């Protein structure tokens, strides 16, 4: 009993662990390494770790070594906020990469803004960069762009009347809203609009409703996690013979495995170059960088590379390029240099930031992919 009490007290007193050996440039990150969003945070954290080792082994940035301080916020916005304060006030980092989810990102934004620390988010929502906040940038394309890419492809195929079935989780709800907003730009009518909860195990009723709607020509399913896989399976079980579109949220081999090769056959979705690294044409500007990252990651961690790790890869590359260019580790100088980033090729796309664009990607960052025989093929 006494031992327990004294350990507890000792633990309390040690609340501020002494920082490790001094490094020249401190970069902080708070990611959802565990918890419900760990499929995002885990590859992101591993990617950062790998890249820091790589840069340091090659002599650092302008001769200065990088020290990476990583915290696990478990996708809890309140924790992310606290870790942001800790990174800024206690660890005194010069830049922060992080916020695996939109919630954690939005929670820590006021903190980086007040302190004037450049911050690159790895979360999807458009609300992070619209309106533009001076210190916040992000690398993943927005869900609005995913909608536009899908609608562009539908337009090419002459589809104009579609049904939507969306998850009610953060990702699905946000993407559904964005899709509804831009649908008319592409002459697309959403004539059926269904939803499902994050833990639902069967979407047959909703899909039956959509199937029964007159004139439907295709179905789009914004959502991530297991939901879209269930939709895909139910879709094939019901024998619906219309094109099915999924979102970039499920652009991974895991989705095909979960839905099954047969059900997933012919499903189209917007994805990044990373997913199709092996079949990219050699003259594609992204080919080299995507293959290098994929090989390095898979060799080190013996697990398949994911789009999400790619977001962290791009954020880190942007940051390193900015610090190199700024020639100093002053947060203000780094921020300005990030904003001047132009034509930087990453795994997600080619980044060109400006004062009123803190995402810096265009639609070309997405590749339209189709699933064939349990693998990916490029549509365009």
């Amino acid at each position: 009993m006494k031992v327990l009490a004294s350990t507890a007290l000792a633990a309390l007193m040690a609340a501020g662990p002494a920082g490790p050996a001094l490094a020249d440039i401190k970069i902080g990150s708070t990611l959802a390494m565990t918890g419900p969003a760990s499929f995002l945070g885990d590859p992101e954290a591993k990617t950062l770790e790998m890249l820091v080792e790589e840069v340091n082994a090659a002599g650092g940035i302008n001769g200065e070594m990088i020290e990476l301080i990583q915290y696990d916020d478990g996708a809890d916005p309140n924790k992310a906020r606290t870790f942001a304060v800790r990174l800024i006030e206690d660890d005194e980092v010069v830049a922060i990469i992080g916020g695996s989810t939109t919630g954690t990102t939005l929670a820590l934004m006021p903190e980086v803004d007040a302190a004037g620390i450049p911050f690159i988010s790895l979360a999807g929502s458009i609300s992070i960069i619209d309106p533009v906040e001076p210190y916040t940038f992000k690398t993943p394309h927005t869900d609005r762009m995913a909608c536009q890419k899908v609608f562009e492809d539908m337009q090419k195929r002459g589809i104009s009347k579609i049904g939507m079935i969306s998850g009610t989780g953060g990702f699905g709800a946000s993407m559904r809203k964005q899709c509804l907003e831009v649908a008319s730009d592409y002459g697309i009518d959403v004539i059926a609009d269904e939803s499902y909860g994050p833990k639902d195990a069967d979407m047959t009723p909703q899909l039956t409703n959509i199937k029964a709607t007159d004139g439907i020509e295709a179905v789009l399913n914004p959502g991530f996690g297991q939901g879209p896989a269930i939709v895909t399976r139910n879709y094939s079980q019901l024998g619906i013979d219309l094109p099915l579109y999924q979102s970039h949220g499920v652009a991974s081999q895991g989705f095909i495995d979960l839905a099954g090769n047969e059900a997933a056959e012919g499903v189209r979705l917007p994805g990044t170059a990373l997913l199709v690294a092996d079949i990219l044409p050699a003259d594609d500007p992204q080919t080299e960088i995507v293959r290098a990252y994929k090989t390095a990651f898979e060799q080190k961690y013996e697990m398949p590379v994911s789009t999400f790790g790619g977001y962290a890869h791009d954020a880190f590359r942007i940051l390193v390029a900015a610090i190199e260019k700024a020639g100093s580790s002053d947060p203000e100088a780094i921020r300005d240099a990030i904003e001047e980033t132009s034509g930087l090729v990453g795994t997600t796309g080619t980044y060109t930031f400006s004062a009123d664009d803190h995402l810096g990607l265009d639609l070309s960052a997405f590749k339209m992919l189709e699933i064939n025989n349990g693998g990916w093929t490029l549509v365009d």
Partner: protein
Amino acid sequence: MKLGSKHTTLLVLAVIIIVAPFFFPSSYYFRVGSLIFINGLAVTGIVILTGYAGQVSLGHAGFAGIGAYACALAPVYLGVHPGLALIIGALLSGAIAFLVGRPILRLKGYYLGVASLGFGILVAMLLTNEAQITGGPDGIRVADLGIRGLLREMGFRVKGSELWYVLTGICLLIGAWLALNLHDSPTGRALRALHGSEVAARTVGVDVARLKLQAFVISAVFASVSGSLLALQNRFITPEVAGFLHSVEMVTMAVLGGVGSVLGAIFGAAILTTLPQVLTVFAEYEYAVLGLVMMLVMIFLRDGLLPSLAKLIKGREQ
């Protein structure tokens, strides 16, 4: 169960709150401090409900959610000051607790636990699904309380985290003072009688249903205010504040520290708030450590950490 008189408890709390900042190397510690105070306030409400009256609620985060979203939504839709929104949230939580608690608390045993569990989940679902009003699962921004701006105009420049350390510290002191007053009042004695034996309490003329309801409403208001403070401090809130895990966290903090004593429960809140910060190095094992600590406390220190330790020390002195 008792740790000295009411005034010693308040004095100890006040001294800790005032002295601790002298040992803070950076303003990050003020942030952790204010989170402890916010959790401590919610847990003080749990002490009244569970420690005094012996009722278990697994849905108090629902009230924290109501308080938090009142501060986010009332300034936007009703045009009121965020400070007033905190009071609106507290009144709303109290009223809802009254309506929900009235039928449930007439029942015995674990009905309150199960029903409140359902209530908490309902609130979380409402906040998640009514996205056009609440901003949905991605959360919503909260208006500025305006105190920092006011102080700046008066010529004082304070950091946000320091200001909130003071504000939440004061709120916690007021909350603890109210809870301790209640403990020694006739109502408090009746509540404790009810805790000891419902039948015996009824026999001596205690209106059991009414008292349980009172305790439930008061603790709901505590939870609501803590949610409001969190929202106002973070200037941003997501539906997770009303989530089931947050409810469990509140009860865990109270039980760990000692649900019968205000100081003990706040101590529990302090431990569980700092633990994730201390354990960042082995974040993956956080829940394993937490589970182990809980089990050990339940087995060896049944009154909770602080009261059991106090008893131990007292025993040795004699």
